[in-house]
Protein backbone atom coordinates (compact mmCIF):
# COMPACT_ATOMS: atom_id res chain seq x y z
CA UNK A 1 0.00 0.00 0.00
CA UNK A 2 1.39 3.46 -0.87
CA UNK A 3 2.56 5.60 2.05
CA UNK A 4 1.56 9.18 1.33
CA UNK A 5 1.18 12.49 3.16
CA UNK A 6 -2.47 13.47 3.23
CA UNK A 7 -3.09 16.97 4.62
CA UNK A 8 0.40 16.78 6.21
CA UNK A 9 -0.38 13.47 7.96
CA UNK A 10 1.52 10.29 7.09
CA UNK A 11 -0.82 7.48 6.12
CA UNK A 12 -1.12 4.31 4.07
CA UNK A 13 -3.82 4.34 1.41
CA UNK A 14 -5.32 1.64 -0.77
CA UNK A 15 -3.37 0.75 -3.87
CA UNK A 16 -4.89 2.31 -7.00
CA UNK A 17 -7.15 4.71 -5.09
CA UNK A 18 -7.54 8.04 -6.90
CA UNK A 19 -7.16 11.46 -5.30
CA UNK A 20 -10.84 12.07 -5.93
CA UNK A 21 -11.70 8.87 -4.07
CA UNK A 22 -9.47 10.02 -1.19
CA UNK A 23 -11.63 13.13 -0.96
CA UNK A 24 -14.80 11.02 -0.70
CA UNK A 25 -13.20 9.03 2.08
CA UNK A 26 -11.32 11.67 4.10
CA UNK A 27 -12.67 15.13 3.30
CA UNK A 28 -15.98 14.95 1.50
CA UNK A 29 -16.47 18.74 1.25
CA UNK A 30 -13.05 19.47 -0.27
CA UNK A 31 -13.17 21.39 -3.57
CA UNK A 32 -9.47 22.07 -4.13
CA UNK A 33 -6.89 19.39 -4.85
CA UNK A 34 -3.15 19.92 -4.41
CA UNK A 35 -0.88 17.13 -5.61
CA UNK A 36 2.85 17.30 -4.83
CA UNK A 37 2.62 21.06 -4.35
CA UNK A 38 0.58 21.88 -7.48
CA UNK A 39 -3.14 22.52 -7.93
CA UNK A 40 -4.88 19.92 -10.11
CA UNK A 41 -8.36 19.82 -11.64
CA UNK A 42 -11.19 17.52 -10.55
CA UNK A 43 -10.68 15.58 -13.78
CA UNK A 44 -7.01 15.07 -12.98
CA UNK A 45 -7.90 14.12 -9.38
CA UNK A 46 -10.04 11.33 -10.78
CA UNK A 47 -7.20 9.89 -12.83
CA UNK A 48 -4.16 10.36 -10.54
CA UNK A 49 -3.42 7.52 -8.15
CA UNK A 50 -0.82 8.60 -5.58
CA UNK A 51 2.36 6.61 -5.09
CA UNK A 52 4.54 6.27 -1.99
CA UNK A 53 6.19 9.58 -1.08
CA UNK A 54 3.50 11.69 -2.74
CA UNK A 55 1.76 14.55 -0.96
CA UNK A 56 -1.93 15.28 -1.31
CA UNK A 57 -3.72 18.23 0.24
CA UNK A 58 -7.51 18.44 0.18
CA UNK A 59 -9.03 21.82 0.98
CA UNK A 60 -12.49 23.29 1.14
CA UNK A 61 -12.07 26.88 -0.09
CA UNK A 62 -12.72 29.50 2.61
CA UNK A 63 -12.92 26.94 5.40
CA UNK A 64 -11.32 27.79 8.76
CA UNK A 65 -9.41 24.71 9.93
CA UNK A 66 -10.31 23.35 13.37
CA UNK A 67 -7.83 23.90 16.23
CA UNK A 68 -6.80 20.25 15.93
CA UNK A 69 -6.25 20.48 12.17
CA UNK A 70 -4.24 23.69 12.43
CA UNK A 71 -2.13 22.27 15.24
CA UNK A 72 -1.37 19.10 13.35
CA UNK A 73 -0.39 21.19 10.30
CA UNK A 74 1.99 23.24 12.44
CA UNK A 75 3.38 20.20 14.23
CA UNK A 76 4.12 18.68 10.84
CA UNK A 77 5.66 21.85 9.42
CA UNK A 78 7.80 22.69 12.46
CA UNK A 79 10.60 20.49 13.73
CA UNK A 80 9.22 17.66 15.94
CA UNK A 81 8.70 18.80 19.53
CA UNK A 82 8.80 22.49 18.65
CA UNK A 83 5.06 23.07 18.54
CA UNK A 84 4.51 21.51 21.98
CA UNK A 85 6.78 24.16 23.54
CA UNK A 86 5.55 27.06 21.40
CA UNK A 87 1.89 26.54 22.27
CA UNK A 88 2.63 26.67 26.01
CA UNK A 89 4.40 30.06 25.88
CA UNK A 90 2.94 33.40 26.99
CA UNK A 91 4.61 36.46 25.45
CA UNK A 92 4.07 40.11 26.36
CA UNK A 93 4.31 42.85 23.72
CA UNK A 94 4.58 46.45 24.86
CA UNK A 95 3.68 48.82 22.04
CA UNK A 96 1.92 47.89 18.80
CA UNK A 97 3.69 49.95 16.17
CA UNK A 98 5.96 48.67 13.42
CA UNK A 99 7.77 46.32 15.78
CA UNK A 100 5.01 45.08 18.09
CA UNK A 101 2.34 44.49 15.45
CA UNK A 102 4.71 42.37 13.33
CA UNK A 103 6.12 40.45 16.30
CA UNK A 104 2.53 39.58 17.29
CA UNK A 105 1.61 38.38 13.79
CA UNK A 106 4.81 36.33 13.43
CA UNK A 107 4.26 34.64 16.78
CA UNK A 108 0.59 34.00 15.98
CA UNK A 109 1.62 32.37 12.70
CA UNK A 110 3.82 29.87 14.52
CA UNK A 111 1.03 29.09 16.99
CA UNK A 112 2.24 30.78 20.17
CA UNK A 113 0.00 29.93 23.13
CA UNK A 114 -0.88 33.37 24.43
CA UNK A 115 -0.07 37.01 23.70
CA UNK A 116 -0.47 39.85 26.18
CA UNK A 117 -0.58 43.03 24.06
CA UNK A 118 -0.67 46.63 25.29
CA UNK A 119 -0.92 50.03 23.56
CA UNK A 120 -3.03 53.15 24.13
CA UNK A 121 -3.05 54.44 20.57
CA UNK A 122 -5.28 54.38 17.48
CA UNK A 123 -4.20 53.65 13.90
CA UNK A 124 -3.20 56.73 11.89
CA UNK A 125 -2.63 56.84 8.12
CA UNK A 126 1.11 57.43 8.68
CA UNK A 127 1.36 54.10 10.53
CA UNK A 128 0.58 52.06 7.43
CA UNK A 129 4.06 52.37 5.91
CA UNK A 130 5.36 49.84 8.42
CA UNK A 131 2.69 48.50 10.78
CA UNK A 132 0.60 45.33 10.42
CA UNK A 133 -2.71 47.13 9.90
CA UNK A 134 -4.82 47.84 6.83
CA UNK A 135 -6.29 51.02 5.29
CA UNK A 136 -9.79 50.05 6.39
CA UNK A 137 -8.55 50.00 10.00
CA UNK A 138 -7.51 53.68 10.14
CA UNK A 139 -8.96 55.25 13.28
CA UNK A 140 -9.45 51.93 15.06
CA UNK A 141 -7.96 51.19 18.46
CA UNK A 142 -4.68 49.36 17.87
CA UNK A 143 -5.16 46.57 20.43
CA UNK A 144 -8.60 45.82 19.02
CA UNK A 145 -7.52 45.92 15.37
CA UNK A 146 -4.49 43.74 16.02
CA UNK A 147 -6.61 41.20 17.84
CA UNK A 148 -8.80 41.02 14.70
CA UNK A 149 -5.72 40.59 12.48
CA UNK A 150 -4.29 37.89 14.73
CA UNK A 151 -7.62 36.03 14.59
CA UNK A 152 -7.44 36.08 10.78
CA UNK A 153 -4.01 34.46 10.91
CA UNK A 154 -4.62 32.01 13.75
CA UNK A 155 -7.97 32.07 15.55
CA UNK A 156 -6.71 29.79 18.32
CA UNK A 157 -4.04 32.08 19.82
CA UNK A 158 -5.24 33.48 23.16
CA UNK A 159 -4.95 37.28 23.18
CA UNK A 160 -5.18 39.40 26.31
CA UNK A 161 -5.33 43.05 25.29
CA UNK A 162 -4.84 46.23 27.31
CA UNK A 163 -5.66 49.65 25.92
CA UNK A 164 -3.54 51.59 28.32
CA UNK A 165 -0.55 53.92 28.47
CA UNK A 166 2.15 51.77 30.04
CA UNK A 167 3.86 53.25 33.08
CA UNK A 168 6.45 52.19 35.63
CA UNK A 169 3.57 51.25 37.94
CA UNK A 170 1.33 49.20 35.65
CA UNK A 171 4.02 47.34 33.65
CA UNK A 172 4.76 44.70 36.35
CA UNK A 173 1.03 44.05 36.84
CA UNK A 174 0.01 43.84 33.16
CA UNK A 175 2.90 41.57 32.21
CA UNK A 176 3.05 39.51 35.41
CA UNK A 177 2.25 36.19 33.70
CA UNK A 178 4.43 36.50 30.62
CA UNK A 179 7.47 34.27 30.06
CA UNK A 180 9.22 36.87 27.89
CA UNK A 181 8.57 40.57 27.32
CA UNK A 182 9.05 42.26 23.94
CA UNK A 183 9.83 46.00 24.07
CA UNK A 184 8.35 47.60 20.97
CA UNK A 185 8.11 51.29 21.80
CA UNK A 186 9.17 54.22 19.70
CA UNK A 187 10.46 56.76 22.21
CA UNK A 188 13.78 56.05 24.02
CA UNK A 189 12.59 57.08 27.49
CA UNK A 190 9.60 54.70 27.17
CA UNK A 191 11.94 51.87 26.16
CA UNK A 192 14.07 52.52 29.22
CA UNK A 193 11.06 52.86 31.53
CA UNK A 194 9.81 49.45 30.40
CA UNK A 195 13.17 47.73 30.78
CA UNK A 196 13.82 49.24 34.22
CA UNK A 197 10.33 48.59 35.53
CA UNK A 198 10.08 44.98 34.30
CA UNK A 199 13.68 43.97 35.07
CA UNK A 200 13.49 45.25 38.65
CA UNK A 201 10.37 43.18 39.35
CA UNK A 202 11.21 40.10 37.27
CA UNK A 203 15.02 40.06 36.98
CA UNK A 204 15.16 36.56 35.51
CA UNK A 205 12.56 36.99 32.78
CA UNK A 206 14.00 37.86 29.36
CA UNK A 207 13.32 41.26 27.81
CA UNK A 208 13.72 41.57 24.04
CA UNK A 209 14.36 45.21 23.23
CA UNK A 210 14.96 47.04 19.93
CA UNK A 211 17.20 50.01 19.22
CA UNK A 212 18.42 51.27 15.84
CA UNK A 213 16.15 50.24 12.97
CA UNK A 214 15.22 53.45 11.17
CA UNK A 215 16.04 54.46 7.61
CA UNK A 216 17.32 52.31 4.78
CA UNK A 217 20.94 51.60 5.70
CA UNK A 218 22.07 48.03 5.12
CA UNK A 219 19.96 45.47 6.94
CA UNK A 220 23.14 43.55 7.82
CA UNK A 221 23.84 46.08 10.58
CA UNK A 222 20.76 44.85 12.44
CA UNK A 223 21.79 42.17 14.88
CA UNK A 224 20.73 40.45 18.08
CA UNK A 225 22.94 40.98 21.13
CA UNK A 226 22.70 39.82 24.71
CA UNK A 227 23.80 42.73 26.89
CA UNK A 228 22.50 41.75 30.30
CA UNK A 229 21.62 38.55 32.15
CA UNK A 230 18.14 38.81 30.71
CA UNK A 231 18.33 41.82 28.39
CA UNK A 232 18.65 41.33 24.64
CA UNK A 233 18.96 44.25 22.23
CA UNK A 234 18.11 44.06 18.54
CA UNK A 235 19.06 46.67 15.97
CA UNK A 236 22.17 48.52 14.85
CA UNK A 237 22.08 50.56 18.10
CA UNK A 238 22.71 53.80 16.25
CA UNK A 239 20.16 54.57 13.52
CA UNK A 240 17.43 56.42 15.38
CA UNK A 241 14.28 57.75 13.76
CA UNK A 242 14.59 61.37 12.68
CA UNK A 243 14.72 63.73 9.73
CA UNK A 244 16.23 61.87 6.77
CA UNK A 245 15.91 58.57 8.62
CA UNK A 246 12.27 57.66 8.62
CA UNK A 247 10.82 54.43 9.94
CA UNK A 248 9.98 52.14 7.04
CA UNK A 249 8.64 48.64 6.68
CA UNK A 250 11.80 46.78 5.53
CA UNK A 251 14.22 47.63 8.35
CA UNK A 252 11.53 47.84 11.03
CA UNK A 253 10.18 44.48 9.83
CA UNK A 254 13.64 42.91 9.90
CA UNK A 255 14.14 44.06 13.49
CA UNK A 256 10.64 42.84 14.44
CA UNK A 257 11.39 39.42 13.00
CA UNK A 258 14.73 39.33 14.81
CA UNK A 259 12.69 39.93 17.96
CA UNK A 260 10.17 37.21 17.08
CA UNK A 261 12.93 34.73 16.25
CA UNK A 262 14.74 35.47 19.49
CA UNK A 263 11.47 34.88 21.38
CA UNK A 264 11.16 31.54 19.59
CA UNK A 265 14.75 30.59 20.42
CA UNK A 266 14.24 31.50 24.07
CA UNK A 267 11.01 29.48 24.21
CA UNK A 268 12.83 26.49 22.72
CA UNK A 269 15.76 26.84 25.14
CA UNK A 270 18.19 27.64 22.33
CA UNK A 271 19.35 30.85 24.03
CA UNK A 272 20.41 31.06 27.67
Amino acid sequence: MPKIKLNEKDMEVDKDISIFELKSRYKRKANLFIYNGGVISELQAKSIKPKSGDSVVLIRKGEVPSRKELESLMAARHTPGVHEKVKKATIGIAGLGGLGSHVAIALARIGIGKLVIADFDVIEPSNLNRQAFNVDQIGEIKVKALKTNIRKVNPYVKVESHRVRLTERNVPKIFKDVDILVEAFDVPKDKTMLVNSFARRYPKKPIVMASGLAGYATSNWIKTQKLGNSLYVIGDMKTGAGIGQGLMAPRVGIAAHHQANLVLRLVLGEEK
Partner: protein
Amino acid sequence: MSQIKVQLYSTLREKVGKGKISIDARNIKDALKKLENKFGDKFREELYEKGRIKNYYILLLNGRVINVKALSQIKLSPGDVLHIIPPVAGG
Protein backbone atom coordinates in the same frame (compact mmCIF):
# COMPACT_ATOMS: atom_id res chain seq x y z
CA MET B 1 39.20 51.04 44.55
CA SER B 2 38.45 48.34 41.94
CA GLN B 3 39.41 48.07 38.34
CA ILE B 4 36.26 47.62 36.24
CA LYS B 5 35.39 47.46 32.55
CA VAL B 6 32.99 49.96 31.03
CA GLN B 7 31.19 49.47 27.71
CA LEU B 8 29.64 52.45 25.98
CA TYR B 9 27.09 52.15 23.20
CA SER B 10 25.42 54.07 20.42
CA THR B 11 25.54 57.88 20.51
CA LEU B 12 27.65 57.90 23.68
CA ARG B 13 30.32 55.73 22.07
CA GLU B 14 30.26 57.89 18.93
CA LYS B 15 30.63 61.09 20.96
CA VAL B 16 33.62 59.95 23.03
CA GLY B 17 35.14 57.86 20.23
CA LYS B 18 35.67 54.77 22.35
CA GLY B 19 33.53 51.75 23.26
CA LYS B 20 35.53 49.84 25.88
CA ILE B 21 37.42 51.42 28.77
CA SER B 22 39.02 50.13 31.98
CA ILE B 23 38.88 52.42 35.03
CA ASP B 24 39.44 52.29 38.77
CA ALA B 25 36.44 53.29 40.90
CA ARG B 26 34.78 52.66 44.26
CA ASN B 27 31.13 52.88 43.23
CA ILE B 28 29.07 53.69 40.13
CA LYS B 29 28.90 57.42 40.88
CA ASP B 30 32.67 57.45 41.20
CA ALA B 31 33.01 55.48 37.93
CA LEU B 32 30.89 58.02 36.05
CA LYS B 33 32.96 60.85 37.53
CA LYS B 34 36.15 59.15 36.28
CA LEU B 35 34.64 58.82 32.80
CA GLU B 36 33.64 62.48 32.90
CA ASN B 37 37.22 63.44 33.83
CA LYS B 38 38.57 61.27 31.03
CA PHE B 39 36.25 62.36 28.22
CA GLY B 40 35.19 65.85 29.38
CA ASP B 41 32.25 67.83 28.00
CA LYS B 42 31.43 65.35 25.23
CA PHE B 43 30.64 62.71 27.85
CA ARG B 44 28.93 65.11 30.29
CA GLU B 45 26.64 66.65 27.67
CA GLU B 46 25.65 63.29 26.27
CA LEU B 47 24.91 61.56 29.58
CA TYR B 48 23.55 64.36 31.78
CA GLU B 49 20.77 66.88 31.68
CA LYS B 50 20.41 69.43 34.49
CA GLY B 51 22.85 67.40 36.57
CA ARG B 52 20.92 64.15 36.25
CA ILE B 53 21.45 61.13 34.01
CA LYS B 54 19.10 61.52 31.04
CA ASN B 55 15.93 59.54 31.57
CA TYR B 56 16.45 57.23 28.62
CA TYR B 57 19.81 55.80 29.66
CA ILE B 58 19.96 52.13 30.71
CA LEU B 59 22.78 51.15 33.07
CA LEU B 60 23.66 47.52 33.65
CA LEU B 61 26.16 46.24 36.19
CA ASN B 62 27.27 42.68 35.49
CA GLY B 63 24.17 42.21 33.39
CA ARG B 64 21.65 43.53 35.92
CA VAL B 65 19.68 46.73 35.52
CA ILE B 66 20.71 49.23 38.19
CA ASN B 67 18.82 51.97 39.91
CA VAL B 68 20.20 55.31 38.69
CA LYS B 69 18.89 57.01 41.85
CA ALA B 70 21.31 55.17 44.13
CA LEU B 71 24.58 55.24 42.20
CA SER B 72 26.87 56.03 45.14
CA GLN B 73 25.48 53.09 47.09
CA ILE B 74 26.38 50.54 44.42
CA LYS B 75 29.89 49.38 45.35
CA LEU B 76 32.19 47.95 42.72
CA SER B 77 34.39 44.86 42.81
CA PRO B 78 37.41 44.07 40.62
CA GLY B 79 36.35 42.76 37.19
CA ASP B 80 32.84 44.24 37.30
CA VAL B 81 31.37 45.23 33.92
CA LEU B 82 29.31 48.37 33.53
CA HIS B 83 27.23 48.87 30.38
CA ILE B 84 25.93 52.36 29.57
CA ILE B 85 23.23 52.17 26.89
CA PRO B 86 21.27 55.00 25.29
CA PRO B 87 18.50 53.42 23.20
CA VAL B 88 17.65 55.30 20.00
CA ALA B 89 14.18 56.21 18.72
CA GLY B 90 12.10 53.98 16.51
CA GLY B 91 9.53 51.24 16.74
